[in-house]
């Protein structure tokens, strides 16, 4: 089965006065139908810019300088804005962290949802409205027909995010990019939305890239995980491989810093230092200055290489038995 999305060697650079910022620096990934890929990283790791690049939403001074993005075999890099408009909102959808970025505050929900349908298909308003009602009830909004005529501010934060997700589902896209959509929500609301999203991925076969900094969300939701650091994927594999037996020292550090049951009261293992400035990356492996395993070999950038199953970009990967100990 060919993947829905195939990104190879993607480089998105920002040309700023302070120099070139390689926000995304050679990212390759694939997503299959009905699969959820968790794209994990901290602020500034390039995870959101990867999502924006796939959506064709990178604005000046940023530009995709290299690589290819194929959606169902069709190359997206280099499309004209006109061609982009026929894909974006139809085959490709994005859900933002803040639903008010998706919703227009001065338009009623029905206006926005019907427009999203009729922009891509020649259907009657009545049919479009019916589809909007169907989408709203699919994400668990009670009495969807009435709620359609409300304005975004009349919804609570969780409900607004549901409306944004329902809008994303309207045209049955092939791929949804979710950029931290539950980060601002309460745990109970987050669980409700994750529940709906999981059901939808299974029911509709929509592929999904779930961008987040929260490993615990990924562990319950994703089939595969890719961990980003300083514009590069440093480790990728199935969720079990990456979370149970991490290879890359950064992934090991990230998992160690999650407060968990068995280490109560003891200091959390922490990664020293902080994310490096993207205009002034250390030579070789970007994680080198913070890495407990770094040595002279790390001055040469490591490649993403297979280490017993998962791929890790490291000269000194943890071997699974050691990481589990």
């Amino acid at each position, binding site marked *: 089965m060919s993947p829905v999305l195939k990104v190879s060697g993607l480089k998105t650079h920002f040309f700023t006065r302070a120099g070139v910022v390689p926000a995304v620096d050679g990212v390759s990934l694939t997503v299959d139908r009905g699969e959820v890929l968790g794209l994990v990283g901290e602020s500034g790791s390039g995870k959101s810019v990867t999502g924006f690049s796939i959506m064709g939403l990178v604005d000046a001074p940023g530009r995709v300088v290299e690589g290819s993005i194929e959606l169902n075999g069709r190359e997206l890099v280099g499309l004209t804005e006109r061609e982009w408009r026929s894909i974006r909102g139809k085959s490709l959808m994005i859900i933002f962290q803040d639903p008010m970025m998706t919703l227009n505050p001065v338009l009623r929900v029905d206006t926005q949802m019907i427009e999203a349908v009729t922009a891509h298909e020649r259907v009657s308003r009545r049919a479009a409205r019916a589809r909007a009602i169907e989408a709203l009830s699919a994400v668990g909004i009670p009495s969807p027909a009435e709620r359609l005529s409300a304005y975004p501010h009349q919804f609570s934060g969780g409900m607004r995010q549901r409306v944004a997700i329902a809008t994303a589902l309207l045209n049955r896209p092939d791929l949804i990019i979710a950029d931290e959509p539950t980060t601002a929500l*309460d745990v109970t609301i987050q669980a409700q939305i994750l529940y709906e999203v999981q059901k939808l991925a299974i029911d509709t076969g929509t592929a999904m890239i779930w961008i987040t900094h929260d490993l615990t969300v990924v562990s319950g939701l994703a089939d595969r995980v890719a961990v980003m650091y300083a514009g590069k994927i440093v480790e990728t594999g199935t969720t079990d491989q990456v979370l149970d037996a991490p290879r890359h020292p950064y992934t090991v550090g990230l998992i160690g810093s999650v407060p968990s049951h068995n280490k109560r009261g003891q200091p959390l293992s922490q990664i020293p230092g902080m994310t490096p400035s993207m205009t002034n990356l250390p030579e070789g492996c970007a994680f080198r200055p913070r890495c407990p395993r770094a040595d002279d070999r790390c001055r040469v950038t490591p490649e993403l290489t297979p280490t017993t199953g998962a791929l890790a970009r490291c000269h000194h990967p943890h071997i699974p038995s050691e990481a589990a100990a």
Partner: protein
Amino acid sequence: MSEPILALRNVSKRFVKSLDAAERMANLVGAGLADEVVHAVDGVSLEIATGEVVGLVGESGCGKSTLGRVVAGIHPASEGEMLFRGKRLAEMNAAERHEAALRVQMIFQDPMSALNPRMRVAEIIGEAPRFHGIVPRSELSATVDDIMLRVGLDPAYKRRYPHQFSGGQRQRINIARALAVNPDFLVCDESVAALDVSIQAQVINLFMRLREELSLTYLFISHDLGVVEHICDRVVIMYLGRMVEMASTEELFARANHPYTQALLAEVPRLDQRKRTFAAIKGEIPSPLHPPPGCHFHPRCPHAFDRCRAERPALREVAPGHISACHLNDAAKHSTGTSL
């Protein structure tokens, strides 16, 4: 339990939106409008022992931040009394109250909006001790250096402005500013929620180290049960302004009594759960303007029965040091003769 450093007795905080001129006019012709009252905190009693870390957990709008602000002295309580080191705040004279206020400091969620962007770090940290005469002017610079070192900041950066720091460092500046007046008690309102995972771990470790070094007491407000479980001795769960359950951390996470707590715990995403089916408690937290009668949680509660809709459940001890406000505890006693 050692002597409580801070005690709240039946503390409530109401926010009232009075009618404006137009609405009063409308009332003259019989519109029957009334003031809108939000019971942000509704009769909370809590004792915090010296050196203890108490977690305060709840969804947005449950009043946990308001309670934190009442404790920190930012909002006066509408009702009830607060005791600091056994002495009622209402009975203190101005000097004592001033001293008590300095002893309790607060650290906020967003490290940037809590700092004045036009002040240098040395001024931000040094302002309060200078103003309150805690440190002589000649020693101020050395004191600021000490505090910066203590929270893991390089004193060489003291001439910088907040925007020149990363998020984690900014939160350290906030902590340094709070520590500058030698507090005994810190109210941390979602203080690690805005930070990246690896930075969050650094700041949590800093809080725990400071607790040891300065024998601090914390009220740790958070929606993140993972963090709360990790660092707190005792946990208080709030729902729509009321305390619904309180227990030691082990007890609460092992034997949650209140259906709301049980539901919250079930929602905590954990690293060891794979491809789980998320099953959610239904619905959302109701508007605090019009809270449901009886037990506030009954519209979302899977076990609700008639009594829950009419009568507010009282907090009762269900195990030593473990209190919970749920009618089910009574019902279980009556029907089976055993306690839950």
